[in-house]
């Protein structure tokens, strides 16, 4: 870029062409006050506070929107500038309430900061207050339009960052203000309460609705959000021992000024009164609070007893996709060297398996192949099998930004009308379960019409001719028939995908948790390989993780068949390496997965279980079986923040510290490392999970050789492939992703024989819809209810906006069954039945019904059968039938 040199306040400063005066000034540490400017937003020049004087022409320029030109001589503090700036501030104050004393924005208020810096208090201008009612019905954001300075940050944040467009300016002149459609309250608008506007509002116009008078907080800590797989950097503001606010980290490019409702408002479960304050031991039907010594002794005695009586393989450890990498590392080591079993698993392993085998078999790389900022530069994005705005809000922002702000095209493959549907250029609603056929149909179009990148395919991939042969027998018409889609829809989607030069794929739990998940992922890989869209910039396959450390927990070895870094347990060299490191013989046979172990009910092949941070009673299908399995155990130790449904069966319960109370790292779905930093001391007597594991091992007479977390981190760095140097940065800023680059390079080194096409072996739907169960039932995730609600269910504010517990059914199906909203129905699947109330809803296609994931016992309806070669029961949907029942039944 063209270098440009200008003079500001007699100082010669340089930048490059295209920069604004404000940008150059900021880089050179010259302060110019602003209200409407923010690095995450396009400048608009609304507040005029950033006026500077061009000394050559005498013109006053708004520095935020004026590009530099060579040789400019700028004065930011000339008497003229100061006079104008003061007048602007005085005018703003003239229509601003004198409410600073009771305004909770306190010293965070930009207007107040600027006014006091410029020595402006009460002034000579007549007050013209703008009266407005304070809007505070929703539990998240309070709006006081009397304090609005019309900087437009909220409007721009809503449109540019999160691309929700819930608010815009309304009316003009004196009556202009940011408003929703028809000026309705936020809770009756598309607003998702992501809090982007809140974090940017310079005055008290937008405020967190919270306990009043929190005001300016003493300290803040930069850490990572512990909800979904995006793992956004987050800043917690702390007062005393309480976290009072969660904000997007300033200047962080990943969250770029926006979190989501969970990150911004869902943290307060850490202050829930239901948190465990002390270790518990079961006595009869009740739990008794005990000291750590007593609880550890009891747990170690129980585990040792089962070990000597039934052998190591009668025991299992469930690590957690919500715990840190270090904790999972210790847990798997605990299972393998202390208990001497490979029965170690975590909650994300089922859906990670689909990604691991699907992507691994084709690309040779086991996870998301690119970073989110590259996704935003893609020309075309294919989103499949997810309500992305709910599963991974940050990834959805990227997709929406690409489409709305950068003119990318969007192919959406999803039967339900999700929020992304209004962004989609092609929206395909295939029959659930037939996604692989649709994708193979697209591949066959691309091959037949010669739309693939022949040069790349022949030079760098393997297996193309076999794929072409296999797809020859698979006509577009067949794909159309089995997916229940018009052939031309598949045709145009295929042409669009192949036609764009940079296409990216985003896939979610609708694929990874489906019975045909692996086939679908392989088919997606085929599409990407045909068009050379895997490794180049702004392309790639993004697989969304449900939990914040879903990736990390698996990579770090919380798996029954893999040692840390995806080194197979069955591999002698890998085992030897860790045997030498840990000075202990390792069990060679792969262990049991969580679902495998618990799905057998009373026939559970285990006698003792140590569950850390998972709640299998709610997360697995057929809770009844899981409950039976847990109650038939000899000994159960549960370690969690709350007395969960699973902990209710425990003999010993350890209280664990929350994400804000400990340190460690998470790996997000892209493979980035996010570091937790301790914000507050652990609640009650709770301890970080890693510390509990170390104490338990010591109590069991097999002390693990670590006394600090640093020692664990150093060992992981040294011995776990993919994690070499993950702790490079002293300050641990997540902007630097050198680790991510290394990780990808490492993957390239072991790519002999890759990438290669996967040959589909079956061209019929994986399962036929049984006639007596004509509906596909899906469990719909919602923003406030995360996972199975173990944490979000304890978040005070999220709880208030749970979706109503109703059965959603499409308009056509409701008409066919003569159902009206409010009717009672019985939902039956081959496994169970339950009653619900009907809500007719236009977002569902015919043949699909939906329950919110928060619906009690909905998992009863789902099949416990393990899919082929999978250790997980397909959970993306189940078949069901409906019948109307009278209300009193």
């Amino acid at each position, binding site marked *: 870029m063209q270098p440009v040199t200008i003079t500001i306040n007699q100082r010669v400063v340089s930048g490059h062409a295209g920069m604004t005066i404000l940008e150059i000034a900021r880089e050179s540490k010259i302060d110019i006050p602003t209200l409407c400017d923010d690095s995450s937003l396009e400048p608009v020049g609304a507040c005029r506070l950033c006026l500077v004087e061009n000394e050559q022409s005498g013109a006053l320029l708004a520095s935020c929107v004026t590009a530099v030109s060579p040789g400019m001589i700028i004065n930011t503090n000339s008497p003229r500038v100061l006079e104008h700036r003061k007048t602007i501030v005085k005018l703003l104050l003239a229509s601003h309430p004198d409410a600073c004393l009771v305004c909770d924005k306190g010293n965070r208020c930009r207007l107040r900061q600027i006014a006091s810096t410029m020595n402006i208090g009460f002034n000579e201008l007549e007050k013209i207050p703008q009266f407005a009612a304070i809007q505070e019905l929703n539990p998240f954001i309070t709006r006081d339009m009397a304090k609005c300075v019309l900087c437009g940050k909220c409007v721009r944040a809503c449109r540019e960052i999160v691309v929700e467009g*819930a608010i*815009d*300016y309304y*009316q*003009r002149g004196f009556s202009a203000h940011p408003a929703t*459609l028809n000026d309705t309250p936020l809770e009756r*608008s598309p607003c998702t309460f992501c809090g982007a506007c809140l974090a940017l509002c310079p005055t008290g116009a937008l405020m967190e609705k919270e306990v009043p008078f929190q005001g300016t907080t003493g300290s803040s800590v930069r850490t990572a959000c512990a909800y979904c797989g995006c793992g956004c950097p987050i800043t917690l503001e702390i007062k005393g021992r309480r976290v009072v606010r969660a904000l997007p980290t300033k200047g962080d490019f990943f969250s770029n000024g926006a979190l989501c409702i969970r990150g911004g408002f869902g943290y307060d479960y850490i202050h829930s009164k239901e948190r465990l304050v002390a270790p518990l031991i079961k006595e009869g039907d009740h739990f008794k609070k005990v000291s750590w010594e007593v609880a550890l002794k009891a747990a170690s005695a129980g585990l040792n007893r089962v070990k000597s009586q039934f052998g190591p393989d009668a025991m299992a450890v469930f690590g957690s996709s919500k715990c840190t990498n270090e904790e999972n590392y210790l847990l798997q080591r605990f299972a393998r060297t202390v208990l001497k079993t490979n029965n170690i698993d975590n909650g994300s392993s089922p859906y990670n398996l689909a990604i691991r085998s699907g992507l691994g078999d084709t690309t040779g790389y086991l996870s998301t192949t690119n970073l989110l900022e590259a996704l935003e530069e893609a020309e075309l994005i294919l989103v499949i099998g997810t309500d992305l705005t709910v599963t991974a809000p940050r990834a959805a922002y990227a997709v929406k930004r690409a489409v709305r702000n950068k003119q990318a095209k969007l192919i959406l493959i999803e039967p339900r009308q999700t929020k992304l549907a209004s962004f989609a250029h092609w929206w395909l609603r295939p029959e659930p379960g037939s996604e692989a056929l649709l994708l193979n149909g697209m591949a066959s179009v691309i091959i037949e019409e010669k739309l693939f990148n022949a040069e790349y395919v022949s030079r760098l991939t393997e297996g193309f001719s076999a794929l072409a042969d296999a797809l020859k027998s698979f006509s577009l018409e067949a794909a159309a028939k089995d997916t229940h889609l018009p052939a031309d829809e598949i045709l145009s989607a295929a042409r669009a995908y192949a036609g764009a030069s940079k296409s990216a794929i985003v896939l979610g739990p609708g694929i990874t948790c489906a019975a045909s998940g692996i086939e679908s992922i392989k088919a997606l890989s085929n599409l990407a390989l045909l068009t050379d869209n895997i490794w180049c910039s702004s392309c790639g396959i993004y697989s969304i993780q449900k939990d914040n450390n879903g990736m990390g927990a698996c990579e770090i070895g919380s798996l029954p068949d893999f040692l840390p870094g995806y080194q197979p347990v069955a591999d002698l060299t890998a085992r030897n390496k860790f045997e030498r490191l840990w000075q202990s013989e390792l069990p060679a046979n792969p262990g049991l997965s969580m679902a495998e172990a618990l799905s057998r009910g009373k026939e559970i092949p285990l006698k003792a279980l140590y569950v850390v941070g998972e709640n299998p009673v709610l997360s697995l299908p057929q809770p009844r079986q899981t409950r039976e399995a847990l109650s038939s155990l000899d000994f159960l130790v549960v370690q969690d923040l709350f007395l969960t449904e699973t902990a209710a069966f425990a003999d010993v319960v350890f209280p664990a510290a929350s994400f804000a109370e400990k340190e460690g790292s998470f790996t997000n779905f892209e493979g980035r490392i996010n570091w937790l930093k301790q914000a507050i001391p652990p609640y009650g007597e709770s301890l970080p999970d890693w510390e509990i594991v170390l104490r338990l091992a010591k109590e069991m007479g097999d002390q693990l050789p670590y006394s600090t977390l640093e020692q664990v981190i150093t060992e992981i760095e040294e011995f776990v492939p993919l994690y070499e140097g993950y702790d490079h940065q002293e300050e641990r800023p997540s902007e630097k992703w050198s680790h991510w680059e290394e990780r990808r390079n490492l993957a390239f080194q072991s790519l002999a024989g890759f990438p290669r096409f996967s040959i589909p072996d079956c061209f019929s739907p994986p399962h036929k819809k049984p006639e007596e169960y004509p509906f596909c039932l899906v469990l719909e995730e919602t923003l406030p209810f995360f996972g199975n609600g173990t944490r979000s269910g304890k978040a005070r504010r999220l709880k208030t906006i749970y979706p109503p517990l109703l059965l959603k059914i499409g308009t056509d199906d409701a008409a066919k069954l003569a159902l009206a909203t409010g009717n009672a129905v019985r939902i039956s699947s081959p496994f169970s039945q339950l009653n619900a109330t009907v809500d007719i809803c236009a977002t569902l296609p015919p043949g699909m019904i939906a329950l919110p994931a928060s619906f009690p016992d909905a998992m009863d309806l789902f099949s416990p059968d393990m899919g082929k070669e999978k250790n997980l029961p397909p959970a993306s949907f189940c078949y069901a039938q409906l019948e109307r029942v009278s209300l009193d039944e």
Partner: protein
Amino acid sequence: MNKAQKEPEINPEVLLDIVTAYRRQKWSLIPLVQEIQAEFGYIPPQSIPLIADALKLFPSEVQGVISFYEQLYTEPRGKNIVRVCRGTACHVRGGKTVLKLVKQHLGLEENQTSDDLEYTLETVACLGICALSPTMIINKQVYGHMNPQKIKQLFKKE
């Protein structure tokens, strides 16, 4: 606005036809809303989501543009638009009284529409024919040198 006012019938098919013709033409918001206003006399609120969907804009964005321009109306207007001049020349020659009398005759305040959708009363900053002041304009017909008699006759006649 008057709550009792009857909503004019909006034919949803006509509305949809107008909107559909502009699909995915982001730049065409203004011509589109002008066409809708030409058809229905105003921009019915139910058209905003349709416009937003067709043009791939946000409903709040569409509303923001519509509410910005004086010439775009979001409420039904009368068959006859009465505009009384409030310019300086008219003011010194009794424009204020003219407006008061027109208000009395129509039973309307400024920017209101009668319940039967016959009249909408508006004011205008200057009609540019100060020689005829005080003036008013009904639809496209200009009336000059207004006085109480003329006003009485005018609204009796119509």
